[in-house]
């Protein structure tokens, strides 16, 4: 066997390995996407839990609308679902009909911004709403 033939065989093996690795890599990427979707879905349920909590407390007059801002501004909590710890950060912003207005003493609306992050079992950090682009809900003072 000449050196040329040996080189061609080695080249073929390298190319074959590349195709093999690329195929498996793309498959695992897709599987990872599917699993991340599951964790993101659970994270969305966590955001829904906190929005429901706020809404119920206001409806039940356990929390007055005026105290919503102070009670939930810079609020943090952690919830574990399927071995993933979801870290919740909530901030509030007083609003008028035209949008955010921090100068309003008794706001008619309060925007609640939520961002959640969790550590994926593969050590990737998952964000469900980010501090720069949070999941938001605006609450209105029914007795304004």
């Amino acid at each position, binding site marked *: 066997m000449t050196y040329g033939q040996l080189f061609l065989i080695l080249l073929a093996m390298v190319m074959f390995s590349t195709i*093999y690795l690329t195929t498996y890599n793309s498959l695992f990427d897709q599987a990872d996407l599917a699993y991340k979707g599951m964790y993101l879905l659970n994270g969305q349920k966590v955001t829904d*839990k906190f929005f429901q909590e706020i809404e119920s407390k206001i409806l039940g007059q356990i929390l007055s609308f005026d105290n919503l801002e102070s009670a939930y501004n810079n609020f943090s909590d952690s919830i574990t679902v399927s071995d993933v710890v979801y870290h919740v950060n909530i901030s509030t912003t007083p609003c008028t009909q035209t949008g955010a207005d921090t100068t309003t003493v008794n706001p008619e609306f309060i925007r609640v911004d939520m961002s959640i992050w969790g550590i994926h079992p593969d050590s990737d950090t998952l964000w469900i709403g980010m501090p720069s682009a949070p999941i938001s809900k605006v609450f209105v003072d029914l007795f304004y």
Partner: protein
Amino acid sequence: MSALLEAIAATLIGGIFMLTIITSIINIQAIGVNLNQQIELVETSEDIVSVIESYLSFVGAGVADSAIINTTDSSFTFSYADSIGSARRIINIGEETINDSKQLAAYRDGSTIPSLGPFQLSDYGVEFVYYDVNENPNPADSLIRSVQMTMEFEYDTYREDIDRRFIRHRIRIWKYFKNLYL
């Protein structure tokens, strides 16, 4: 003689390559099927959870008292009325065992035919945790104001050419009973 040895070696190496390719194809097929079914399971479980959430939003609607009838770790029975003063409707959501397999189902007004389900669950099944207004767990039924429901759906992906594998999806929801807060 050396030509014969070279031919044997080439056949062996070629055979190894062929086996690798066939194994890869089988693995790719198995991963593809499982992945597809995992996505389907997530979509289906999300649909089921949406319906369960709509059921739970009825808790205590139109009834002045005894909205929550029975609570256990694996089932929840409550009542509501379509309008104030009309007959109470009773809903039971919970886990049951059919053919040695845990199933999630909802029943309306004591019917033996489920109005939702049954849906196959894993051995984990379903778990209810009840909370009072101050988020203390497991209060008396009359003090319950919210529920945390965790369930793990399961899908048997058995195929003759791929073998048996269970795909699971655990999902947790919270429901605050707004009617009981009013």
